[in-house]
């Protein structure tokens, strides 16, 4: 510390500490060397050295989603910043609070195509909630505090702070967060009471109601999930969750219908189609959920609670919009429900549940367990059985069929224990995210359910696991295919498997060993339990290579452009109508 103040780097670190940061994920380079120097001389902040900047952002996402805190990333200018772009976009799509500090060339060189210069604020403008380029020393403390405020307030998201090297090396004065408490960014938290009353009215009068809830409930903190559970039980109504919402309502509960949407359950999707009142809390009517918009839940009164006004009436027009935080609104809903002594319509509800039970009776997730070949579903069911009853299990995934099967077959009873890339669908998310989770919860069991294609996208982070002794378990459902791509090609492109097979795969057992981890393999169903047992037993990083049926498809499936009541339940259920041209252009 110099006599006249602090260096920019010291100010950055002071601000991090004052914002409650104890861990950052990063990778050094010329432009951020001053920060690394300051890091070297302190003990309050732990730095986790990743192996690629993309990994740092996903790790911060895993850290953030599993703790509710802001995840922090530190990368250098130019390639460091551009490598972070995928992770930032991922965090934006899934509303994850992340602050990413990027180095920048000194202010007087900006615009000169200096070495490792990139227009970081320009590149990241559309993939961040907000970003800053600090050009004046005196702005630094304020920008740092505001960045955290913006990242975590309202609808959370990623924020970039671009830090020119001369600012990091300059001398300035630090100011604490209390100086900046009155920032201009103040999203609405409390919902409008008259709207909430209207909603409760509609909820009480419903004959075929459904709660459709999502990631917003998880974003609102664990108490919002408790309130949701309380309200759903109070009403006795069915509840379905999006991929991002899993855990916001206990999966083991009878009132839970499973996930909805493209690969959701028959009962959840038909209940959505046939309901008369839909109570959407913190879900954004994503196209993976709604299917064909014109035929989405055609006869229901729709209530939508969301903290972001731009999520409301974006894809689906709703009847009762409520802008506010899921937790606060649920609290008010419960209060009003109790004060008015609302009672659900018992007879109607009984009929509704009996219809739903018929749908449930279809047992849409059923599959034929293999005798010789492991079915991916079977592998996950065995894994689910092995971790049953454990409180401290966190699951992350990569992207593809395995991700959908994990969502369908693993039970999530608590929020913040399930991290997956939903909105962007980023292959390579799961391993670094698991790493971030494990850093935040050193004693927990953290499993990345992976595909053999996805895992190769950020496999370098195995080295980070070894360095920090993070005993993450990578559970690969190895079908030697980009299974999800192969499935679409089978169903929509006449079985022409263009470039979707995985050839020349590494030997994952040896790969694990070369990364100082334990490698295991199961090729037959009767080896599954032993491999899973050993994986959970060892206190080291593990790659378990589970060789599964290569041809298995993920069902149920609503083909793109189809409606909720046009679901395919299994391989025998052929696409009835040919997929429309409109459907074919959809992703």
């Amino acid at each position, binding site marked *: 510390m110099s006599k006249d103040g602090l260096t920019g780097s010291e100010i950055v670190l002071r601000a991090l500490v004052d914002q409650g940061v104890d861990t950052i994920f990063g990778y050094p380079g010329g432009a951020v060397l001053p920060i690394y120097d300051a890091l070297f001389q302190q003990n309050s902040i732990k730095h986790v050295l990743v192996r690629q900047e993309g990994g740092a952002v996903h790790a911060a996402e895993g850290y953030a989603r599993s703790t509710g805190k802001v995840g922090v990333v530190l990368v250098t200018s130019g390639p460091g910043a551009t490598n972070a772009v995928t992770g930032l976009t991922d965090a934006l799509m899934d509303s994850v609070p992340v602050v990413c500090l990027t180095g920048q060339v000194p202010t007087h060189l900006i615009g000169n195509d200096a070495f490792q210069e990139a227009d970081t*604020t*320009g590149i990241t*403008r*559309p993939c961040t*909630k*907000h*970003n800053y*380029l600090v*050009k004046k020393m005196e702005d630094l403390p304020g920008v740092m505090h505001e960045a955290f405020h*913006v990242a975590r307030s309202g609808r959370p998201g990623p924020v970039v702070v671009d830090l020119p090297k001369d600012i990091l090396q300059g001398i300035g004065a630090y100011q604490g967060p209390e100086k900046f408490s009155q920032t*201009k*960014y103040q999203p609405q938290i409390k919902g409008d009471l008259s709207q909430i009353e209207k909603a409760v009215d509609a909820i009480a009068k419903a004959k075929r109601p459904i709660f459709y809830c999502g990631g917003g409930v998880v974003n609102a903190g664990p108490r919002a999930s408790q309130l949701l559970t309380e309200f759903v039980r109070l009403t006795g109504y069915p509840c379905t969750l999006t991929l991002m919402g899993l855990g916001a309502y206990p999966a083991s509960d009878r009132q839970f219908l499973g996930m909805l949407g493209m690969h959701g359950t028959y009962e959840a999707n038909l209940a959505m189609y046939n309901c008369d009142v839909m109570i959407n809390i913190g879900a954004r009517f994503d196209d993976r959920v709604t299917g064909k918009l*014109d035929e989405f839940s055609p006869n229901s009164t729709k209530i939508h609670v969301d903290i*972001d*006004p*731009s999520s*409301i*009436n*974006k894809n689906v*027009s709703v009847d009762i919009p409520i802008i506010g935080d899921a937790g606060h609104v649920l609290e008010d809903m419960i209060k009003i429900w109790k004060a008015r002594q609302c009672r659900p319509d018992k007879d109607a509800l009984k009929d509704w549940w009996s219809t739903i039970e018929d749908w449930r009776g279809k047992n849409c997730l059923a599959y034929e367990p293999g005798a010789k070949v492991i079915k991916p579903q079977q592998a996950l069911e065995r894994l689910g059985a092995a971790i049953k009853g454990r409180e401290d299990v966190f699951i992350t995934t990569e992207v593809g069929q395995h991700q959908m099967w994990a969502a369908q077959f693993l039970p999530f009873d608590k929020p913040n224990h399930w991290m997956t890339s939903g909105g962007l669908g980023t292959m390579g998310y799961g391993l670094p995210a698991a790493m971030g989770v494990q850093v935040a919860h050193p004693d927990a069991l953290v499993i990345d359910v992976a595909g053999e294609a996805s895992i190769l996208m950020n496999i370098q982070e195995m080295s980070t696991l070894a360095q920090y002794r993070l005993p993450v378990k990578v559970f690969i459902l190895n079908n030697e295919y980009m299974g999800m791509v192969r499935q679409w090609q089978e169903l929509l492109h006449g079985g022409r498997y263009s470039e979707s097979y995985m050839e020349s795969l590494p030997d994952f057992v040896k790969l694990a060993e070369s990364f100082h981890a334990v490698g295991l393999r199961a090729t037959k169903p009767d080896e599954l339990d032993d491999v899973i047992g050993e994986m959970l037993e060892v206190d080291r990083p593990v790659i378990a290579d589970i060789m599964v049926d290569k041809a298995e498809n993920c069902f149920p499936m609503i083909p793109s452009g189809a409606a909720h009541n046009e679901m395919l339940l299994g391989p025998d259920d052929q696409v009835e109508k040919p997929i429309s041209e409109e459907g074919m252009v959809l992703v």
Partner: protein
Amino acid sequence: MTAPVAEERHTISVLVDNEPGVLARVIGLFSGRGYNIESLTVAEVDRGSSLSRITVVTTGTPMVIVQIKAQLSRLVPVRQVNDLTEENPHHIETELALVKIVASGEQRVEALRIADIFNARVDDTTLQSFVFRVAGTSETVDRFIDLMRALGETDIARTGVVAIARGADRT
């Protein structure tokens, strides 16, 4: 099939913090999400003040217009968004254009006559040309330009629309 919903034209006034990148944010929002921009103007509201006003004229279905306003409001440096078309249907909207016309003889006389009708001012004259300054609604400016084009070679510079609500209420 449901009938296609008609597009509407809206003038939206956006008060923003005067900070670097704010215009890029607004423009990027429109291009990134595929919204239309018919015209966009921006300037500080007064010298030394920390606010600028961006006036955007856009078209879209009612649902898209609502989205545009919600998306604009979501930007951190945006302080206030006013849909003048909706909130203040008789708001004042004006545009300024500098219109250069190269013409001679009878065309030249006619150009002056029309300029007079439109209250356009002559900002520059040579023996071959005029530069007119015309102000009014976009339709007025359009009509003036069309008439000038019929009389000779033209060069046009337009400001785009600026707008403000009528009455004592401040936005």
